[in-house]
């Protein structure tokens, strides 16, 4: 191999290796930033029709912005009564808007039926949990986010 060819190969491999290293560092930082980000930012969830009367549904309203493109795969709530009992809320009577666009605060609302085991009524603290699949650049990750302590007051349903 001539010295000229040797130096040319060395220079090319240096450039390729430098570009690969830069790509690895940029993708690594992007992945860590994506991995650590919450699905929703500046999020607020409330029940707007407390106390829930007989035959009424529980109406939720939410506002928040998403940093990345995330589609929900499952959304459910757990209502904790004062005596420690748990009631699962997963019967949607009005659906929420799925796959809202990222980058700006978007209001969303949904309604859920009062579970049969909540017939006695009372005061509850609801935790709403959403499972999502999020995409960013070439990355995809399953994420989950919970919003706790939403006040729910249910009047006796019988």
């Amino acid at each position: 191999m001539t010295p000229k060819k040797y130096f040319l190969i060395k220079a090319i491999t240096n450039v390729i290796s430098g570009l690969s290293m830069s790509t690895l560092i940029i993708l690594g930082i992007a992945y860590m930033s994506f991995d650590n980000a919450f699905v929703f930012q500046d999020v607020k969830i409330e029940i707007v029709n407390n106390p829930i009367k007989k035959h009424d549904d529980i109406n939720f309203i939410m506002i928040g912005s998403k940093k990345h493109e995330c589609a929900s795969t499952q959304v459910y709530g757990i209502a904790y009564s004062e005596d420690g009992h748990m009631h699962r809320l997963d019967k949607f009577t009005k659906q929420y808007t799925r796959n809202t666009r990222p980058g700006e605060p978007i209001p969303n609302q949904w309604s859920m039926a009062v579970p049969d085991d909540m017939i006695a009524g009372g005061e509850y603290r609801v935790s709403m949990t959403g499972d999502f699949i999020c995409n960013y650049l070439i990355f995809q990750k399953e994420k989950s986010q919970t919003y706790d302590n939403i006040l729910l007051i249910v009047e006796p349903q019988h």
Partner: protein
Amino acid sequence: MDLERNQKIAKQVERWDLYARVTPTAFLVSAALLLIFDIVSQETVMYIGLVGFSFTAVVWWWWAIFTIKYLVTTLNRASKGISEVTQEVKSVTADLQDLKNDT
């Protein structure tokens, strides 16, 4: 002994040079292939990369420390030797001058 060790260090530098040139591209290409064929998850690739990066950084750091220490010792020894030779040359020059003056 020093010459042998110097050659050893030169070889190690060559190896580091090759490693720095080949590893990033090799890792990038192999990671891309593993992800495309769905053999490993993105998280696994991320952890393998982090471990490899950390391992390289630690090994290189200690290698650099020991090599610099050796080079500084060698440089000091060489500098001391040169200083002694300079003194001797000065002394010989003075003796020669004295001899010249006497004759």
